[in-house]
């Protein structure tokens, strides 16, 4: 009896460095976790490993040069970043973009949204330990990349949008190939859902895991699918429509539970809605017409400022641009959804199990180059 009492069990909190090269961080992120057994007591993200000085470069590169750089800022949604930068400058300078270019931008952005969600789907399943779906998801993403390649010759960093319109005219076969993809894709989404959505192993990992608090999401500036999963209907395509988003019909799905499963379901549904949008864009895009406004070779933007934002696959992708009658920005602040999401991460995971960190972090769809800029 007394022998048993002599065994003293000593417990202490353990500090665990997750990253910077953890395979599931989708970039270079270090999480300093304090663990009490399996439970996370505190978390502090360390970022900056991929800092490339995007905002400084914006002040030192002209409006013609910079669209080629801003693609690198968020390489999974390079169509969005290019359109964001170009439209900010167009807003200040009052440049009218030809109708055809606007429809092309929308088509490209929505295709990019599907591609980004597909890549998220594949890698997220990888994070959860399901290797198979990545190959299916990338198979369809490949079709989209082929479409991009057909239009602008690049598969990842497009330099497609430029101030005044888009850089390349449509290829003659683009519409045909795009419609083929749109015809086939909804069935493929059904395939993913058949593999994943009702899979008990998957549900065990995500159902009821990482439930976000609505007010905390608002306080930390969370946007995109994570914000909609807690029931806040904020989609800038509906609320602050730019381009021709007010002329196309689509639905914004919102979640009710705010858990990881909701965020998965929202992204799946968003892909379906994107297909709807692209179909309408193709129907309404004029066959003829200019794809680029007449802008001078050296673009000078008059003094002004604008906060402009687009609904990227990750959330509110904003740019605060200040110009000063020069061929460069005076200041460009990039507002990245992933930045806020990474900041929000400690709030989301404290009190959860360490095995759920990647399930929750993955569901935020953070991409680190965007955080560090």
């Amino acid at each position, binding site marked *: 009896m007394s022998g048993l009492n002599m065994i003293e069990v000593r417990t202490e909190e353990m500090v665990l460095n997750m990253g910077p090269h953890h395979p599931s961080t989708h970039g270079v992120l270090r999480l300093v976790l304090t663990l009490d057994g399996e439970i996370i007591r505190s978390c502090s993200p360390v*970022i*900056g490993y991929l*800092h490339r*000085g995007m*905002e*400084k470069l914006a*002040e*030192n590169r002209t409006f013609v040069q910079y669209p080629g750089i801003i693609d690198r800022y968020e390489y999974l949604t390079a169509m969005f970043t290019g359109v964001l930068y170009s439209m900010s400058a167009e*807003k*200040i*300078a*009052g*440049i009218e973009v030809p109708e055809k270019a606007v429809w092309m931008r929308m088509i490209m952005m929505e295709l990019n949204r599907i591609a980004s969600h597909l890549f998220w789907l594949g890698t997220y399943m990888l994070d959860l330990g399901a290797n198979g779906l990545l190959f299916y998801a990338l198979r369809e993403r490949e079709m989209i990349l082929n479409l991009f390649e057909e239009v602008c010759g690049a598969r990842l960093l497009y330099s497609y949008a430029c101030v005044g319109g888009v850089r390349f005219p449509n290829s003659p076969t683009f519409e045909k190939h795009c419609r083929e993809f749109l015809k086939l894709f909804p069935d493929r989404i059904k395939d993913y859902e058949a593999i994943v959505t009702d899979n008990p192993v998957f549900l065990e990992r995500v159902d009821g895991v990482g439930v976000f608090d609505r*007010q905390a999401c*608002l*306080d*930390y*500036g969370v946007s995109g699918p994570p914000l909609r999963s807690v029931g*806040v209907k*904020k989609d800038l395509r509906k*609320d*602050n429509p730019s381009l021709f988003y007010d002329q196309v019909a689509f639905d914004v799905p919102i979640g009710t539970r705010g858990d990881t499963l909701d965020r998965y379901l929202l992204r799946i549904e968003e892909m379906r809605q994107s297909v709807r949008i692209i179909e309408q864009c193709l129907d309404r895009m004029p066959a003829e017409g200019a794809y680029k406004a007449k*802008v*001078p070779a050296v673009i*000078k*933007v*008059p*003094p*002004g*400022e*604008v*906060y*402009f*934002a687009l609904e990227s696959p990750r959330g*509110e992708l*904003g740019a*605060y641009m*200040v110009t*000063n*009658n*020069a061929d*460069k920005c*005076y*200041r460009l*602040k990039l*507002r990245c959804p992933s*930045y*806020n999401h990474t*900041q929000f991460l400690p709030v989301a995971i404290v009190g959860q199990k360490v095995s759920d960190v990647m399930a929750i972090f993955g569901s935020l769809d953070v991409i680190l180059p965007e955080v*560090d*800029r």
Partner: protein
Amino acid sequence: MSDEDKKATPEAGTEAGPTRDAPTGDAPTGDAGPITEAGSTKEATVAAAPAPAPAVPKAPAKPAAPPLELSPAGKALADAVAGLGFDLGEARPDSWGNPTFEVAPDRLVDLGTALKAKLGLSYLACLAPLDWPDRWEVAYHLYDFERKTWLALKTRIPKDQVQIPSVTPLWPAANWYEREGYDMYGVEFAGHPHLARLLMSDDWQTFPLRKDHPMDLEGGY
């Protein structure tokens, strides 16, 4: 390349001050204040249409800035903010119709508290410091879920002073934005819980986004 960059940066900076100084006044007519030759024509066309604009001497291909006006939602929000009784003057629209208010640094937290409590603006979308030749400026962008628009607050401090009250206790999202502001500009947000470098390494000495910071440091880091 480095030569060119070094030259370009201060040049853009000196041009900036007076031109940007003007539109920050409350009345739109204040736009025609002290003006450099580069900005004069543009400012005149923006500010007052009836005023005879001086002839454009060079670069006729330059696009003219469109007249700025508040969006309907922005106007509703600006009216609501004016109703709080802070005497902020007229709201200035930005190029997307969002209202911008100028606020003194010592009233920033009071105004933010009122905005959050009375108008429900708890969503800080963006926070960006700016380096003007004569002052620091910090721009806050808040999203209004009710009226579906952004509200910009701007506060400015003189160049020799780098202290500005922190809004992190009010909007937790400001935490990293303020740390980044300190990291990149050296602006100190007084009252921030943990004002340390964020993107640059901890032992970094310079503030890279300042306008006088060269694009490449001689002799490496």
